[in-house]
């Protein structure tokens, strides 16, 4: 190729556009409203059978009836109760073992293979066994959730501890900090971001196991409610239950975001 002989000054073309995420406020809301409007009109025009997929309006109506009838609170109350107990139990246990694995070589040597072996078991598969041990009542459901939450918490906790910069620990030792203080003032706060990220995962695992456990022998609870509605072909009630779950998940997620923002305000 011969060199370009052109003495005229030319503009340098801009080549750096795109590939940047810019916030588009309101776009999500518009898409949401459009989708629901489409669904609603499809139901109104009779394109979708109300038995298979009820309209958004009838789902809202079912929700309103549930609220005024008072049964909604009973279902949600029961579910929250189980979720809170199970999650707390699993989280406390998971934090304890996670810390032990993260800090002491011996507990790591023993605990890590054990956790690796038990973690992949879908915990819902253990529910029948847990029912045999603990009975059909609350304890077996709580235990299922706790088990499901326990292992991811262990893994999140010890990985977070592994991620605490060693130089900060050496620094603490160089100032003669007692081991308890190194743990309390350096390791724990340093591992907190990772632990909180684990909470996000375990909260959703807890919710999944909650519904599954409630579908196996429970009188009240969102899972039981959805199952009953399905058995009676009350799809509007069924979907009202699903909406409740979605709202519950959102509320938990928002709560965790708040907690993160407050605890990690130094970031």
């Amino acid at each position: 190729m011969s060199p370009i002989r052109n003495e005229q000054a030319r503009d340098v073309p801009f080549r750096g556009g795109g590939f940047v995420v810019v916030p588009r406020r309101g776009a999500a809301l518009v898409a949401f409203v459009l989708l629901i409007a489409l669904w609603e009109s499809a139901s109104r025009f009779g394109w979708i059978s109300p038995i298979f997929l009820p309209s958004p309006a009838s789902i809202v109506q079912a929700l309103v009836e549930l609220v005024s009838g008072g049964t909604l609170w009973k279902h949600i109350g029961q579910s929250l109760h189980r979720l809170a107990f199970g999650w707390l139990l699993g989280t406390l246990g998971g934090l304890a073992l996670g810390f032990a694995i993260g800090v002491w070589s011996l507990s790591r040597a023993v605990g890590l293979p054990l956790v690796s072996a038990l973690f992949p078991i879908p915990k819902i598969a253990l529910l029948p066994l847990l029912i045999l041990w603990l009975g059909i009542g609350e304890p077996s459901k709580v235990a299922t959730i706790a088990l499901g939450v326990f292992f991811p918490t262990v893994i999140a906790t010890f990985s977070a501890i592994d991620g605490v910069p060693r130089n900060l620990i050496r620094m603490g030792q160089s100032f003669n900090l007692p081991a308890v203080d190194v743990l309390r003032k350096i390791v724990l706060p340093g591992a907190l971001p990772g632990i909180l990220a684990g909470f996000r995962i375990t909260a959703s695992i807890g919710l999944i196991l909650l519904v599954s456990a409630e579908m196996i022998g429970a009188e009240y609870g969102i899972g039981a409610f959805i199952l009953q509605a399905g058995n009676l072909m009350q799809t509007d009630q069924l979907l009202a239950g699903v909406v409740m779950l979605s709202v519950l998940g959102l509320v938990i997620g928002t709560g965790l975001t708040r907690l993160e923002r407050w605890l990690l305000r130094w970031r």
Partner: protein
Amino acid sequence: MELIVEGVSHRYGEVVALEGIDLKVREGETLALIGPSGCGKSTLLGIMGGILQATGGRVRIRGEVPSGSLNPQTYIFQDFALLPWRTVEGNVALALEHHSLPADEMTRRIADVLQRTGLSEFRTAFPKQLSGGMRQRVGIARALAVRPAILLMDEPLSALDAQTRELLMEDFLALWLRERITAVYVTHNLTEALRLADRVCVLSRRPGRVREIVAIDLPQAERTTPSAQARLSRLHDRLWGLIKAEAQVAEREVVA
């Protein structure tokens, strides 16, 4: 307080990092440890302060620990080692909290060192809000708060840009000249060593041995004068001659 290194050697698996190091850090002096990368400078400093266990030899201290000293051998780190979740004040307090000082004594110490390092107005700032130079000042303030007898500094200026380094070096000097704290200063920067140190210990590389100890018999305050420059420049050339060949080898090495 004096620090005496006797026949210290250290190995990482097969690699002999340090061998037969004998060294004495005299009361009130600043000793610079220089050498090419991988010569075990930082390892030696870690052993001197008791945060690394040498595989051979021993390190002893001799002399009075000054009154009020909570941590005779105190480090200043290359990467500052500040806790990001604590404020400037909180980071300094970390070194004091476990000593059960009276509350007012602790407040006084913190206020005093923050004032001496020019950090008073940044008391409540978090490390991420500060520049590199300011972060290292926090590291210095934290070290001063425990009234050290010996300061152990691991390339404290290496993570900073050239201008900040210059500024902080002046601050260091002002501090030395006023307080005369015994100090060991690890660096790979000859200019820093020649500006700050009373003696320069040159380490050889793999195994790290004491190659030569060069005294700079010129008060730090006079080292910027034109007449001193010529002498320092000769010393610079001599030190560079001692480490150049090994630095070249180090630079061409594939890290295992």
